């Protein structure tokens, strides 16, 4: 009790009254609430980790779908481009059909001569050999190509003479026929003239060759 108004007798009497006590269940409830209030909260998973799985799944789905669509589009785009090489020769073949028919034997004749020349240089460079060693090997290879070309050239020229329509103009061809005739090679001149007429049926022949 306050000092100013202290009444020891009254205080003593009051303390003897005792009085009530809070029920033990109430004590337990209050203490539990007090403990819970200062108990560190359970560690929550960070937000980014909680979303990690759904986001990664969604990203995988989007990536897969995008790749699939891209591949499909590329295939669709590549398909029309791949077809023309198969069909393309058909169109130009129709236009100069006649000329090509004449050229066929010439090309056949050229074919066996060219491949060896083109195939020869391939084995020449050796990948494992250093640069300094490569040069001496490469030079003979180039010489071989040149030599072979030289040997092929007369053959080609000879073939070209037989297949005049592709090698010469009609005027040049006629001049050659005229030369054969002047040299007295009547048979060859006649054959050449027949070939010329076949190749150029509408070309007007000069008076001396009719």
């Amino acid at each position, binding site marked *: *009790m*306050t*000092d*100013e*108004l202290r*009444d*020891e*007798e*009254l*205080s*003593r*009497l*009051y*303390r*003897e*009254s005792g*009085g*009530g*006590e*809070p*029920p033990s269940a*109430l*004590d337990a*409830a*209050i*203490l539990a*609430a*007090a*403990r819970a*209030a*200062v*108990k*560190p909260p359970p560690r929550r998973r960070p937000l980014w980790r909680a979303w990690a799985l759904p986001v990664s799944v969604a990203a995988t789905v989007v990536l897969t779908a995008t790749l699939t669509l891209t591949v499909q589009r590329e295939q669709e785009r590549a398909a029309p481009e791949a077809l023309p090489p198969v069909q393309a020769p058909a169109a130009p073949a129709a236009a100069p059909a006649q000329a090509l028919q004449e050229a066929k034997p010439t090309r056949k004749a050229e074919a066996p001569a060219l491949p060896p020349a083109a195939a020869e240089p391939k084995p020449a460079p050796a990948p494992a050999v250093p640069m300094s060693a490569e040069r001496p090997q490469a030079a003979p290879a180039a010489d071989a190509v040149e030599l072979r070309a030289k040997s092929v050239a007369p053959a080609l020229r000879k073939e070209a003479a037989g297949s005049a329509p592709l090698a010469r103009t009609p005027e040049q061809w006629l001049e050659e026929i005229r030369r054969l005739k002047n040299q007295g090679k009547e048979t060859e001149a006649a054959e050449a003239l027949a070939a010329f007429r076949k190749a150029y049926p509408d070309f007007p022949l000069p008076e001396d060759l009719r």
Partner: protein
Amino acid sequence: MHEGMGDEALMLAYRDGDAGAFEALYRRWRSRLYRYLLRQCGSPAQADELFQDIWLKVVNARRGYEAAAKFSTWLFRIAHNRLVDHYRAQGRVEVASYDDDPDDADVVAAIPARAQEQPEALLVRKALVEELVRQIEALPAAQRETFLLSEEGELTLEEIAAATGVSRETAKSRLRYALNKLRAGLRELK
């Protein structure tokens, strides 16, 4: 561990997360606060409810606690506010009695305090205790509260004034008036 610590140190320790400090503080004050409430509202059920509310307010207000005042003053201020709310919710007249303060309490001086016990009259003493409890319950709420804060809370007049939100003189007047009535009632019994 918490035995030698003062109330304020215990409350600060609890604020900083020491649940054991709260338990020590609770054990120290539970009976006094409960009796204060029980004598004020008269019903154990209501006292239980108020008691729990007040301690939960202490728990929830821990972060704002500063050791500027005594813990007991802080605790009984919370109890006082809760009790006033309770009276208002009940529509009881005790709220009005807080404004009904007598100016003059000089009659206290005229009532002599009991100098010594009467050892031969144990039965009479028991009857006196029972009468005292009845007299306390019969006091106006403001005077009863002031008396109980003085007895149960061991608060000074300044602390009672701080806990109940009145001036020191008002608290002094209430206490003097309460003592006057209690002595008068006991004297009649004798």
